[in-house]
């Protein structure tokens, strides 16, 4: 069917409005439906005994001490449960990738600290914790392999039977003639850009309640971005029909990518609830969450980049080496492979080559984290362009500007193999530099240097193009139902985790129906009420899920038009949407509200209609490509190494904006997470593979006083879908890290510094200055 575009003159009451979040009232008045708030007193509590060793054989598990406790209802080792699993936890990746099985509870060998070794079900959460101290496990220690460099030596193997720690080697894009490009360059640099390993610290840790429900169905309430996927994975692993389970996810307190996967505890609560015929609850402690929820990033880019004295970019050769952790996760390989298409960024190149290698280490598996491959790529290429500009003696802004495709070149075929829909990349850069007052800071920077001030200034920028919606095959479900009271119920297959997606979808619907937002209820995250859904990830909610709902509304309007034409004895073409209903053009007295029409339909006054409702699955035929430029100004105390972020300007083009306040919220949150990676957060393992950053004392999530005032601006192009939206959820984590680190390095060039690894903590900055000075004195 043909969908109408964004509503035109006189009908734009809702789209583009900073509507208040409908999600907030119950959250801030103590009525959150977070899983942990829905635990019945009858529930048993799952305790998981986790490996304290990064790599060891399991030589014996003695559960008798735990089983002797009166509060313990059941206890199992990995061996006890091994025959229960029909298949291991789900995996995907290149065809030739090694896919060693990961089981919910390890039976014979552990490969990361925190891997489950035994479980108990006890009558209280405290009793479950106590019971774990009464389980004895004999471990046979094996060498830990906590780093990529150690893994690549292939001396100690994470999976002995594979004979190697290399998960896969992927040969990607080969475009243009790299040798010729580098031969005709004035400067060719080879640099390594380390993408630090981080964790998606959600406010709500992973939480599951599995509860026997009516009709033999088991209800699984879980904190996830992908309820339908959880249902299918649980069914696969337990060898049952999907209809045996109803997966419910409401009021999820943050996802950030790690909640895209099915975890051991979701399977375990379900299996134990089935066995014991009682509800079983698991609430991860913060430490469990940090240890066992998949980590993100953790890869390195070895880049060779060429350029000419006029600023022309020539060749880009990329080798990515990524830490997959102890097992390949469902999306772990994709994070590396995503770089193939997106690493060239928003620039013209003459030649490009990409290869990727995945590596096993004795650490928790890595998977998607806000951006899932795009921030990694943008960081490397944006750092490299700054280094190239420095080597060429050019302003990094000029190098970027020179190599952007012009607005009239869109759709633009990128050398990475994608065709960018629309954009004006130079205007994004210029807007950011104007807003931050670039020339003035350059003058101030020179003045500080001349005065010998120990507080140096640095200015950094990063331009990016994102790839959102995740393309063909990634459809989304939307449905709209209007009842005779005028209540509009919207159902969506998305799995929002705090974005305000319900408000956004309600705006789209209200705009088309010309009804009040109050009349609209949006339902997510219930696999019984919603037949199918992919979930929330890849900045796809509005450009795919929103378009699905818009399509469903348009179908409802079409159905209402047909019904109203019969009721009013008018021609369908003569009916206009007006004031929450339909009216014969030029005859206001004929107005029929959608409630009236729904009532007539339900009363069978209209033939062949079964309720005023419609479903629409939207499958995008391509990606959307948001873009922008982020700019940062830092002041560095070169005696203490402290970095003070003085200014941060984000200019993002996300296509048509449905709700500017929610969009700004996404940018603020994403930028904060990006700054966090640049300056504060970072996973640290010791040589034995212990996670040293296993609490929020050591894993430094910044809070408001650590962050500057964030200045956010938008430009607006038009996405290639009926709403014209592109996506914004991951822009901040893409733009902010390279902008901030480029600023840090810019401030320290005078000391001979060309790299500071993330997070640019005071000690790292101080060390970089000292190393730079020593090398310069050399």
């Amino acid at each position: 069917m043909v969908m109408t575009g964004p509503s035109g003159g006189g009908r734009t009451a809702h789209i583009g409005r900073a509507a208040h979040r409908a999600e907030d009232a119950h959250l801030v008045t103590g009525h959150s439906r977070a899983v942990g708030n829905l635990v019945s007193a009858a529930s048993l509590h799952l305790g998981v005994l986790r490996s304290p060793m990064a790599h060891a054989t399991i030589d014996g598990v003695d559960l008798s001490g735990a089983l002797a406790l009166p509060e313990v209802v059941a206890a199992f080792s990995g061996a006890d449960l091994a025959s229960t699993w029909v298949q291991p936890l789900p995996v995907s990746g290149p065809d030739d990738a090694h896919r060693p099985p990961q089981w919910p509870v390890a039976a014979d060998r552990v490969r990361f600290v925190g891997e489950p070794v035994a479980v108990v079900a006890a009558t209280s959460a405290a009793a479950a914790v106590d019971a774990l101290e009464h389980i004895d496990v004999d471990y046979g220690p094996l060498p830990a392999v906590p780093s990529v460099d150690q893994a690549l030596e292939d001396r100690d193997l994470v999976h002995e039977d594979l004979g190697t720690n290399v998960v896969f080697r992927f040969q990607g894009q080969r475009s243009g003639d790299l040798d010729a490009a580098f031969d005709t360059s004035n400067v060719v640099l080879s640099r390594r850009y380390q993408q630090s390993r981080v964790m998606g610290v959600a406010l709500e840790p992973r939480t599951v309640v599995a509860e026997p429900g009516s009709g033999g169905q088991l209800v699984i309430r879980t904190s996830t971005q992908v309820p339908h996927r959880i249902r299918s994975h649980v069914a696969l692993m337990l060898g049952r029909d999907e209809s045996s389970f109803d997966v419910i996810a409401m009021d999820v307190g943050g996802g950030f990518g790690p909640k895209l996967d099915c975890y051991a505890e979701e399977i375990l609560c379900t299996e134990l609830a089935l066995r014991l015929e009682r509800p079983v609850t698991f609430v991860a402690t913060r430490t469990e969450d940090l240890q066992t929820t998949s980590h993100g990033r953790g890869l390195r880019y070895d880049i060779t980049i060429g350029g000419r004295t006029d600023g022309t970019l020539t060749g880009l050769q990329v080798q990515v080496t990524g830490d997959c952790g102890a097992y390949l996760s469902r999306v772990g390989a994709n994070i590396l492979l995503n770089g193939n298409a997106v690493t060239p960024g928003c620039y013209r190149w003459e030649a490009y080559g990409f290869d990727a290698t995945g590596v096993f280490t004795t650490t928790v598996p890595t998977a998607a984290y806000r951006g899932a491959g795009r921030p990694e790529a943008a960081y490397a290429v944006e750092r490299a362009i700054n280094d190239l500009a420095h080597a060429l003696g050019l302003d990094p802004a000029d190098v970027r500007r020179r190599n952007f495709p012009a607005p009239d070149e869109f759709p633009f075929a990128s050398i990475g193999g994608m065709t960018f829909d629309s954009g004006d990349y130079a205007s994004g850069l210029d807007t950011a530099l104007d807003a931050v007052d670039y020339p003035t800071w350059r003058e101030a920077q020179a003045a500080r240097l001349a005065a010998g001030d120990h507080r140096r200034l640095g200015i950094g920028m990063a331009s990016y193009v994102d790839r959102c919606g995740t393309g063909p095959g990634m459809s989304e479900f939307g449905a709209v139902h209007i009842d005779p009271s005028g209540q509009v119920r919207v159902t969506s297959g998305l799995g929002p985790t705090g974005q305000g997606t319900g408000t956004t979808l309600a705006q789209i619907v209200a705009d088309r129906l010309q009804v009040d937002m109050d009349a609209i209820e949006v339902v997510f995250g219930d696999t019984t009420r919603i037949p199918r859904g992919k979930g929330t990830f890849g900045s796809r909610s509005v450009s795919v899920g929103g378009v699905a709902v818009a399509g469903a509304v348009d179908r409802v309007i079409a159905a209402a038009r047909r019904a109203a034409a019969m009721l009013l004895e008018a021609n369908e073409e003569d009916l206009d949407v007006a004031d929450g209903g339909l009216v014969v053009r030029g005859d206001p007295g004929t107005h029929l509200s959608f409630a009236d029409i729904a009532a007539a339909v339900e009363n069978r006054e209209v033939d062949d209609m079964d309720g005023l409702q419609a479903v629409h699955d939207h499958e995008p035929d391509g990606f959307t490509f948001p873009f922008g430029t982020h700019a940062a100004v830092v002041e560095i105390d070169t005696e203490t190494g402290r970095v003070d972020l003085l200014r941060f300007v984000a200019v993002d083009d996300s296509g048509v904006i449905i709700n500017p306040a929610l969009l700004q919220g996404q940018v603020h949150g994403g930028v904060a997470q990006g700054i966090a990676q640049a300056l504060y957060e970072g996973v640290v393992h010791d040589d034995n593979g212990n996670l040293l950053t296993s609490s929020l004392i050591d894993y430094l999530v910044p809070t408001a006083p650590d962050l500057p005032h964030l200045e956010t601006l938008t430009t607006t192009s038009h996405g290639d879908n009926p709403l014209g939206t592109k996506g914004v959820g991951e822009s901040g984590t893409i733009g902010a890290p390279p902008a901030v680190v480029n600023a840090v390095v810019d401030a320290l060039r005078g000391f001979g510094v060309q790299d500071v690894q993330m997070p640019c903590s005071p000690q790292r900055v101080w060390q970089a200055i000292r190393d730079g000075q020593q090398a310069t004195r050399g």
Partner: protein
Amino acid sequence: MQVPETFDYERASNIDDAIALLERHGDEARLIAGGHSLLPMMKLRLAFPEVLIDINDVPDLDHIRIDGDEIAIGAMVRHAAILDSALLAEHYPIFRDAERVIADPLVRNRGTIGGSFCQADPAEDLSAVGAALGGSVVVRSSSGSRTVPMREFHEGPYETKVGDAEILTEVRFPIRNATGSAYEKVERRVGDWAVAAAGAFVQLDGDMIADAGIGLAAVGADHFIVPDAEAALRGKPAIRESFEEAAQLCHDQCSPVTDQRGPEDYKRHLARELVLRALTRATARARGEES
């Protein structure tokens, strides 16, 4: 769930009651005031007290007042009250400097000066402040009160002069003329423990330094002090060269350890830099050039 092991709980109504409870329950009992050190350790199962004796109801421990020629601070005074105290800001702005960088408002609303001193964490900011200023600590038992010089109170990491059935009741600082004080800290994130921190107290006699105190946190200085650095300042002109000499002695004589907050050489460097800055600011304040 992060839950402590089972423990008993007693609530003391006054100091004598608290001391009696300590005597009754022996060395497996722990006092709890703000709880921001003890409770996390219990939840992480790093501490297993059998009995907690809550002293939040104990009266007469929450004063900040002038008592003779000293300022007396009750053991149950919260960090937030220290931060807000005009009396302390007037005499010793080092408290305001330090409290601004101690944890966050939630912790400052609960944590107490007595708890901070008795926890004796080697990175505790208030211990470094106390070390810089000197003064004394009042400790009470069933046989009465005794006064311990501030610089003898801490015996090492997590060890103090407070015995099993004793309670720290008050911390006292002498009031002196022509003084200035300041605190400088480098942390990884707002509210974090110090990578390194330095407090300084300076008393001037004209252009000369009549007396000085330096307190160092998180760099392994015994009793949080470097006596040689202070001795080097006394009788010297209050100029940068004097401060640099003292700062260098702190650099040389502290003994930091490498950890996640930084390598040993970086912490030594910070000790020097922060002592230099704290002495400079303390002197400016003594001269009335800075508030």
